[in-house]
């Protein structure tokens, strides 16, 4: 039982990332009808927002400290980050330590802007063109974004550690009445899961309970009629594109501590997220979230020793296998609306 629970927990963090990216993909598809192959790149840009903020916070100046000497007796040069001199040593160190969570605030305006520019500058011109063209141009954009990041940050993964307080693991088995040490789980993974739950909840609440969200939903159902009612639906859809980009970016920011960001992380996640969207049902938001978590957990179960010894390599192919079965037996996906992209 505890082993079972552990696998579910293990699947949650990857499942959260899948769910967040797939949610954004579905939002874009549902509102604008565009298949965005550059969405993985947005995830990656989010992760590099965290890297950038970390670098900015660590900008420092050198002073010669007379009290400390190296082994030759020369005074030692000490690097002090600017934030430490501005906010005092302790507060400054705390700010640097919490750079990843702070990067969330830093990333939101950046990702919104990136999404806005992308939609107005490029995607807008592709609404009337076939899906194949949309796939191709966003695929090209993904390559460009990836290479730009590679140019500035290099090809190697960059460590973005979580705050000191959130490192280490938690024995959560004890809380649920299992034996001690049965279920030990890294804290940051729990944080990631909670964070994504908040974001997913926030997006749904936004769409469900605000006037803006209501108009967007109406536009998703029937764009033309909403336009005829005198509402500038394009503008709202553009904002939704920005929000979808921000969701992907935030997923990337917080994912850094789990897996050091590198320039091709977006592509790795993109392929899987597309599979997630398709399994969940193109255009269905709850479907994307559900399928994201389901596939994440399924992948974690397939990675157990029992599964990999029974069928070698099952962990590598399970998601694709599920996708193929779903597409063939229920092409509209788990929760897709009837008739949406079914043929």
């Amino acid at each position: 039982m505890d082993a079972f629970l552990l696998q579910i927990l293990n699947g949650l963090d990857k499942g959260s990332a899948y769910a967040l990216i797939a949610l954004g993909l579905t939002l874009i598809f549902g509102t604008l009808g565009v298949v965005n192959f550059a969405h993985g790149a947005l995830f990656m840009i989010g992760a590099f927002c965290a890297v950038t903020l970390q670098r900015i916070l660590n900008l420092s100046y050198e002073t010669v400290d007379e009290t400390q000497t190296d082994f030759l007796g020369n005074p030692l040069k000490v690097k002090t980050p600017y934030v430490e001199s501005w906010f005092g040593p302790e507060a400054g160190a705390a700010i640097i330590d919490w750079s990843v969570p702070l990067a969330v605030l830093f990333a939101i305006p950046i990702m919104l802007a990136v999404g806005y520019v992308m939609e107005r500058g490029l995607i807008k011109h592709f609404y009337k063109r076939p899906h194949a063209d949309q796939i191709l141009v966003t695929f090209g954009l993904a390559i460009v974004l990836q290479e730009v990041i590679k140019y500035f940050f290099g090809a190697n993964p960059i460590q973005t550690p979580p705050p000191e307080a959130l490192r280490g693991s938690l024995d959560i088995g004890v809380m649920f009445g299992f034996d001690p040490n049965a279920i030990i789980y890294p804290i940051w993974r729990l944080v990631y899961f909670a964070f994504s739950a908040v974001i997913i909840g926030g997006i749904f609440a936004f769409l469900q309970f605000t006037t803006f969200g209501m108009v967007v939903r109406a536009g998703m159902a029937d764009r033309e009629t909403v336009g005829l009612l005198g509402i500038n639906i394009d503008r709202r859809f553009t904002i939704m594109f920005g929000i979808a980009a921000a969701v992907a970016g935030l997923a990337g920011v917080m994912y850094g501590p789990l897996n050091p960001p590198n320039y091709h992380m977006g592509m790795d996640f993109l392929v899987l997220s597309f599979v997630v969207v398709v399994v969940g049902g193109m255009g269905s938001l709850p479907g994307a979230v559900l399928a994201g978590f389901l596939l994440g957990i399924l992948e974690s179960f397939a990675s157990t020793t029992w599964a990999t010894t029974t069928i070698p390599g099952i962990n590598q192919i399970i998601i694709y296998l599920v996708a193929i079965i779903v597409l063939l037996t229920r092409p509209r996906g788990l929760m897709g609306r009837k008739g949406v992209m079914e043929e």
Partner: protein
Amino acid sequence: MLGLNKKDTSLLIIVAILTLLAPFILNPFPAGSAMAQFNAGYPDLMQRFVIFGIFAIGFNILFGLTGYLSFGHAAFLGVGSYSAVWMFKLLSYNVIPAIALSVVVAGLFSLLIGYVSLRRSGIYFSILTLAFAQMSFALAYSVLSNPKFNLTNGETGLQVYADDPQILQGANSPDLPHLFGLPMRSTYTLEVGAWSFDFNAGYYLCAVIMMAVFYLAIRIFRSPFGMMLRAVKSNQQRMNYTGLNSKPYTLAAFVISGMYAGLAGGLMAAMDPLAGAERMQWTASGEVVLMTILGGTGTLIGPVLGAGFIKYFENIFSKINDNVLHGWFSFLPDGMEDAMVFIVHPFIGKGWHLTLGILFMLVVIFLPGGLVEGGQRLLNWVRGRRSGADDKTAGKTEPAE
């Protein structure tokens, strides 16, 4: 000639002349001169031109005619390579059985994948093929290389070892891929003054095969079967309403293009007896899509042009470094020179993919017909200018009431 009309015959003849004379055409600069780095006439690169040309021609039969965008064609290329290397391991280094088997195996494999994937169309088809290709990649990379059943040799890549059976390997036949004793690597170098031209056996084998499959592609494009495929692209629903089942046609197109990919994979292994899983990765599938789009989707010559264009510039751009750039811009004042080098630097060497991505976006946005359409537009523009101003009024059409 050969059942082609006049225009296609001349196209085929032009392609034949260009491929056969490629060692001359691609080496316009004397060896050792400053411009020699733009020469592309060495065997390895020329082989890549034609092999990727074959791959793109095949992809175009599916994507250009039926409009089905497959994102998993590299899987067939990889399967072709693996089967060819297995033939080297089991039979002999003769390339004929290897290439034949790679085509057959890729055909069977694509029949299987096509049968499943073609039950869906549009974006679902793209994602299904992508999923299948990624699955094949994962299988080849890890699953099928366990000690009990080592089919692909995992990360190292499949290669021929000394203790392989090679039952048909004669005592005198060379110990590397050969065509009835003629090694693929043998190269005859012709020196004319300062120029040197390489005539490579492997290249000519690939070139002859490419001409054959190019001819086949022309025949397919012009056949009633090709018309059916175009009908699938323009309006599949209407085609179904007229009582035609489009499935066998699309499946046939898929298998044919899979066999082209397998042939390309087999040739790749024949030039260099090694097969790795990275050939099946989805970036490799993306590359052939790029080639086809860049050249011109649905045109005969487009994919070949696209493949040549991408492979040539990949090679040239990767070779250029900052020193070369400084040489180019040395005529500028010092500050300007450094600035130019700084600006160009991200796009060259390792930054080639950035250039490729930008180029690809520009083509999709502004020139959906690719290089072929660009050439036609240029031609029309030149013609329009030459014919003078009096045509301007004639060319204008008044809307009919």
